[in-house]
């Protein structure tokens, strides 16, 4: 059996339909929604604000604190156990590391910028959707940023290189999933993980295709941020 066509009939390099909205949570300092296919990420940013517990304060710089959470009813029938776990803790950390290079929090010693990523509905690619939403929310919060951050998962399904995997492709037995976060203007990569096996040639192609796809995501982000102010 060969994987000739994608499960949902998309082209190999085609992203799922995307939509984005900024300013969805009025009480937050910045917020955004990013939807790609059936995956929906909501993000709220609070701060810079006073940081407690006090031992976490850094007198040299403000810190970024990310909380990633999949809602209990978000997945595929199986209930996601609420609260933090090994997986959400790790993803919170990689999102934090993906966002931190564009931020400069030196102006805000002893403070914290809190980023909450919530996923009411998931169909793979949640950390990427989370990063994309968080970048918009941080910009909406008025923080100084060098660039936005766009993220997408690319990968391999049997012998084909594909972009923006859904859950079926992500969990396919012969394949690999490579989430990539890119700074769209400089092309720098701030997140690169891999689950599965690929050859050296394949990973090069995967990263190149992910970068290409991020350009489309960037356009969606830009349009959403500007749409908030167009009347």
């Amino acid at each position, binding site marked *: 059996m060969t994987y000739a066509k994608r499960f949902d009939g998309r082209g190999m390099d085609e992203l799922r339909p995307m939509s984005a909205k900024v300013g969805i949570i009025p009480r937050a300092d910045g917020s955004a929604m990013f939807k790609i296919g059936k995956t929906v990420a909501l993000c709220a940013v609070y701060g810079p604000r*006073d940081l407690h517990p006090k031992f976490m304060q850094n*007198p040299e710089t403000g810190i970024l604190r990310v909380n990633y959470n999949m809602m209990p009813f978000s997945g595929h029938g199986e209930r996601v156990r609420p609260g933090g776990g090994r997986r959400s803790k790790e993803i919170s950390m990689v999102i934090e590391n993906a966002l931190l290079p564009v931020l400069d929090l030196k102006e805000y010693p002893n*403070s914290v910028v809190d980023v909450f990523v919530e996923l009411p509905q998931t169909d793979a690619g949640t950390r990427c959707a989370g990063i994309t939403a968080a970048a918009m929310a941080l910009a909406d919060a*008025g923080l100084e940023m060098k660039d936005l951050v766009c993220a997408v998962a690319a990968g391999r399904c049997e012998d084909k290189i594909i972009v923006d995997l859904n859950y079926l492709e992500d969990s396919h037995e012969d394949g690999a999933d490579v989430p990539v976060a890119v700074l769209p203007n400089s092309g720098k990569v701030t997140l690169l993980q891999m689950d599965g096996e690929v050859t050296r040639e394949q990973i090069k192609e995967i990263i190149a295709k992910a970068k290409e796809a991020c350009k489309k995501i960037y356009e969606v982000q830009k349009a959403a941020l500007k749409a908030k102010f167009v009347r």
Partner: protein
Amino acid sequence: MVKDKEIVVPGETIATGISFLPGKGAYRDNDKIVAQRLGIVSIDGKVIKLIPLAGKYIPKLKDRVVGMVIDVLMTGWRLEFNSPYSAVMTLKDATSEFIPRGVDLTQYYALGDYVVCQIVNVTSQKLIDVSMKGPGLRKLRGGRIIEVNSQKVPRIIGKDGSMVSMVKQATNCDVIVGQNGWIWIDGEPENEVVAVKAIKKIEEDAHLSGLTDKMAVWLEKETGVKVNPAAAPPAEEQATEEHPHHFGGSQ
């Protein structure tokens, strides 16, 4: 090349070439001038700067702010004012009255009291001192406090206080706008409601041009009081006449 008054997102290239200089909110990346935050481009000769559309209030020296007492200390009060950092007001800066040793400080300023004060010191670690000594600085009694985004404050005040005096004139309310985005409004309850609505509207439409004239029409419709934006008297008690230039001013 992005046009003047256009909205840009962080990382967006505003201009290329070495003939421009990056101002506030922009930075140079080789031959490009790049936006550093979400804002409106403002090109002033060779300098390109950004007028921010969002962001928390960051305390600045000499800003007049509306603050709330959150703690009473040994030698003063701690104030909160919608910023990541709180401020300290010492006895010396609090009042010109004589305060005897060991007296209960809450009889001067109690927890939850609002004051309009001025920032007199900001350290690199963002330790902040405020003072009540200066014209117009006082405790705020009665009225109500509303919160707006501090980035919109220059627009709410308007050029030489024109916008806020218009609101005052039309609603017959006393209004004090702190640079931190807290606004104190005092008047007849129904007038206060109109003033709140007016200020929220200015906040929402802050990035649009010709706002003063639009607001004059809106206020006249709401209150029936005819206001002339050009003839509005200069604000006497404004928290920030010092910074009317922030939003480009003219409409």
